[in-house]
C-alpha cells in the first residue's frame, strides 16, 4: 500500500493513533516517518516506531488549558523541565516530572494508550502494599457481586479477607 503522506512510496509503517477516543490508521513510508520523527531533538538517526508515535502526539494544548497553563506555569522542581518544554520535546526529564505535571498528563496518556492507570507488574521491593491495595479493590468488587446474588455467607468470608489485608496495609 502507498504512503498516505506522500502518496508515492511504499508504506512500511502501520499503526493507529487514538484521537478523541477515535482510532485513526496510519500507513506511511520511512522518509515521511523520518521527517515527522525529526520533530524530536536528539533522535536524528535513532528513529523508531516509538519516536514516531510521540512525534505524532498532538501536544498542542486546547484553548482552555492554555489559559490554565499561563495562570499556573508548571515546572518540575527536580530537573527543571517545564511543561512547555516537555510538550515540545515529547520526553520527561525525570521521574518527578510525572508528579509535577500531575493530572495534566491524563489526557495525554488517554490519547496514547486509551488508559491512564497502570495495572501491570509492580517491583517487589516497593510493591507489597500496592499489591495488597489492588487485592482489596478486587475483593470489594467480588463482595458486591456476592451480595447482589444474595450469597451472604461467601460475602462475609470475603469481608473477613478484606479486613485481614487492611490490617496488613495499616501495619505498613
Amino acid at each position, binding site marked *: *500500500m502507498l504512503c498516505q503522506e506522500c502518496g508515492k*512510496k*511504499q508504506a*512500511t*509503517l*502501520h*499503526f*493507529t493513533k487514538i484521537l478523541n477516543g477515535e*482510532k485513526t*490508521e*496510519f*500507513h506511511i*513510508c*520511512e*522518509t515521511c516517518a523520518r521527517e515527522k520523527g525529526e520533530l524530536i531533538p*536528539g*533522535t536524528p*538517526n*535513532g*528513529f*523508531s*516506531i*516509538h*519516536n514516531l*508515535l*510521540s512525534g505524532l*502526539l498532538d501536544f498542542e494544548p486546547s484553548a482552555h488549558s492554555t489559559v490554565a497553563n499561563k495562570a499556573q506555569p508548571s515546572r518540575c522542581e*527536580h*530537573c*527543571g*523541565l517545564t511543561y512547555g518544554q516537555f510538550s515540545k*520535546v*515529547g*520526553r*520527561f*526529564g*525525570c*521521574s518527578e516530572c*510525572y508528579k509535577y505535571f500531575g493530572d495534566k*498528563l491524563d489526557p*495525554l*496518556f488517554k490519547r*496514547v*494508550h*486509551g*488508559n*491512564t*492507570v*497502570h*495495572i*501491570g*507488574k*509492580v*517491583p*517487589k*521491593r*516497593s*510493591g507489597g502494599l*500496592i499489591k495488597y*491495595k489492588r487485592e482489596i479493590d478486587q475483593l470489594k468488587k467480588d463482595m458486591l457481586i456476592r451480595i447482589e446474588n444474595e450469597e451472604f455467607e461467601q460475602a462475609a468470608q470475603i469481608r473477613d479477607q478484606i479486613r485481614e489485608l487492611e490490617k496488613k496495609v495499616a501495619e505498613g
Partner: protein
Amino acid sequence: MTEASRFTQHALSEWMKGEGPDSDIVISSRIRLARNIREYPFPMLATNGQSKEVAELAAKVLESEELGTISRFTLLPLADLDELQRRVLVEKHLISPALANESRNGAVILSDNESISIMVNEEDHLRIQCLCPGFQIKEAWDLAGQIDDVFETQLEYAFDEKRGYMTSCPTNVGTGIRASVMIHLPALVLTQQINRILSAITQVGLAVRGLYGEGSEALGNLFQISNQITLGQSEEEIIDNLYSVVRQIIEHERAARQRLIHETRPKILDRVSRSYGILSYAAIMDSKEAAQRLSDVRLGIDLGFIKNVSPHVLNELLVMTQPGFLQQTAGEKLTPEERDIRRAQLIREKISAAG
C-alpha cells in the same frame, strides 16, 4: 581478540542457531523493558557525572550472584567500540542506533549467547532486551522478567503506583514493555492479502513495521509486529494479545502457502529456483535485491523445494550482507558499488558451501 570483537566477528548470534517453534514463519521474538533508577534524571537531562554513576550502578549488578545463574555477561562501554563495531551491533539488533550514535556514558551488557542485551543510558537508564528464536514471545517475557527481578533487588526503580514504571517517553510508561515478533510473510504478499492484514493488525492496537535496507521500502517480506499500548494493560494481556494475533497471521500465511503450492506450483517453483540460481551466480547484488531473493529462497526451503540450504545460513546472510558487517569483513570502508560486489561474493560462497 578484544572483548568487543567476540560479539562483532560472527553475524549469527548463538541464540539464532536454536530452532524455535513456528520458525518457518516467525524469525524471532523479542521483549524489551524500559526501566529507570529513582533519583537520577533520565539520560536526556542527566549530567555527565550522573550518567556515569548510572553506568556504574548497572555495572555493579553484574557482580550479583543471581545474575550469574542466568548467564555470564560482558559489559561493553560504547566508548570502547569503534564506529564499525557499533554498526555491527546495531545490525545484529543488540543495540539501537540511538545508543550507538548519541548516548553519553552509554554501555551494553551482553549475555554470552547474545540472547540478552541490556542497554545502559539509552533513552532510559536501562533497556532490558531478550531475544528468542521462532515464536517464543512468552518465553522471552519469562527471561526478561527474571533479569528485571535481579536488577530490581539491586536498584531502586522509578515506579509510581498510578503510572507504573516511569519512562522518558510517554509511549512507554506503565509496563515499559515492548513485545515484538519478526515475521516472514511472502505468501501473503504474493497473494496480495497483505494490505488487508496490515490494516487489521493496526485495528487491534498493534504496530507493524517493514524491515529496511538502505532504501526506503519494506524488504524481503519481513515485518516486525509489536504492541503500541503500554499503560492500562497488564504485561500478560499485552503479550496474549500479540500472541493470538500473530498466531492468526501464521495460520493465514500457512493457508496462503498451501494455496500457492496447489494452484500455481510451477510458477512458485520457477520463482524460487530462479532466485536460488541468481544468488548462486550473480556478481553484483544490491541490498534490496538480496533481501527479495533471500526471501524467495527461504520460502523455497519452507515449501520443501530447496533442501540443501539451512535457514541458519539465511539468518546469517541477513546480517552479513548489511553495510557494517560487509565493511568489517573487508577490513575497510567500501563504496556502495564495492559493497554490492562484496555482497554478491559473500552470498555465492555461503549458498554454494551449503549446497
